[in-house]
């Protein structure tokens, strides 16, 4: 068992999930709170990682972080080195790759909150921030759980983006899925299987947690 890879994978998934919830919450709120072409365009862009090959996304992140672009040059200037082939480079790639898995459940959750409740809160004097905090978030708690679990599980399982952006540096960018790939390359099928099984069980438990919770809530309301 490649424990450094497991530790790295869990660390990457935790950081990505936290950052992504911070980014996705205002984005989803904005998308859900109105109509218009701008919102639909952003929604389509957010969904792109669902259909793009991870290598395409990884390629552009790699290029974007490198000295070939303005963003990359700023990063290099600030940090003294490129983010490519580092842990934080992986985080940037993961955040982009898992963006739809955080944004979409939140958009669905926010849109599902009764508009009349939001209007009433507003008339009773609640500022937009208070409406969000006291009405929107508590009434879409399930969406936050779903977004967090899906993001976490999806990040644990990513391969293409990690390989493109991070390479395969043990202890730095070699995540579990890449370690499995390496084992298979070395024809160590038993070792690959042990790790692969872990991933299957972990992912299954995460999804089960989401569905079990959704079911309980459904029964509650019924």
């Amino acid at each position: 068992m490649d424990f450094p890879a497991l530790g790295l994978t869990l660390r990457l998934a935790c950081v990505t999930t936290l950052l992504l919830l911070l980014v996705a919450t205002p984005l989803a709120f904005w998308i859900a709170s109105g109509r218009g072409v701008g919102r639909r365009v952003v929604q389509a862009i957010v969904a792109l990682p669902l259909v793009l090959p991870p290598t395409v996304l990884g390629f552009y992140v790699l290029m974007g972080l490198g000295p070939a672009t303005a963003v990359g040059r700023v990063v290099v200037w600030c940090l003294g080195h490129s983010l490519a082939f580092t842990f934080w480079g992986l985080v940037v790639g993961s955040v982009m790759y898992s963006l739809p898995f955080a944004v979409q459940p939140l958009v669905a959750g926010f849109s599902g909150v009764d508009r009349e409740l939001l209007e009433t809160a507003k008339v009773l004097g609640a500022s937009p921030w208070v409406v969000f905090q006291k009405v929107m978030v508590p009434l879409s708690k399930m969406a936050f759980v779903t977004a967090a679990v899906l993001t976490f599980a999806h990040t644990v399982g990513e391969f293409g983006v990690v390989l493109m952006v991070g390479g395969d540096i043990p202890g730095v960018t070699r995540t579990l899925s890449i370690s499995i790939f390496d084992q298979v390359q070395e024809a160590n099928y038993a070792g690959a299987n042990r790790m692969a099984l872990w991933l299957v069980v972990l992912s299954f438990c995460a999804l089960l947690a989401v569905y079990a919770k959704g079911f309980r809530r459904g029964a509650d309301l019924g």
Partner: protein
Amino acid sequence: MRRGFGEVRTLVEGVHHRLAVKGVVGTLQLDVALEFAAPWTVIFGPSGSGKSSLLRAMCGLLPDVEVEFERRDGNAWMRLDAMQTSRRKLGYAPQQAALFPHLNVRENVAFATVQRPRGRAAWISAEQVVEGALDMFGLQMLADHATRELSGGEGQRVNLARAFVVPGARLMLLDEPFSGVDRKRRDAVLPEMKAWLADLDLPVISVTHDVDEALLLGAEVVRLDGGSVVAQGAAAVVLAEERERMLRVLG
């Protein structure tokens, strides 16, 4: 209770709010210009005559309609239509009770009081207002219950109580305030409501399609039909025809 029953004082003199609404809501052409001078004004009319739309226009919830809405502030007129909904200082009980399902009865009633950071003294007095409103609408026994356990009439009382505790409110908007509330309780709570409002010098605009209720309130009545005002005046005058019919039925 905060005070006993007393004669309701008419503290609101002169016009306190002005409203002009023009535009289309659904299939209805709204064209209304109104001045509100009475402490309690009832907007009366059949379903679909645009009553609730007028209240929603005052709240700033009809974005596609031309609305002019002003409040007398000392000797000046304050433009409310240009203000954000949350800054208009309205107590509001919508037609569907729209209670917050994640809050219990007391938390629902207190909703408007907990959202602003305030001093300890203000916090204590806000708590007293909440308890007073729970008392007035007979909700103390239900205060810790979840809203989904309430009957329709109980939910409506929570809706009303919640509107009554908005700090600093300058106008109360009640949409079918007594729908689902039995008449006995309505008749009992009405004098208390009026006294509470007179205490705060807080005018009311309510909506109803119930003649009995409009007459009972003894308020100024605005009669609405097909999106336009067809009459405005004292309840006994505007609703004279309905009143006679009712008296005939009662023998």
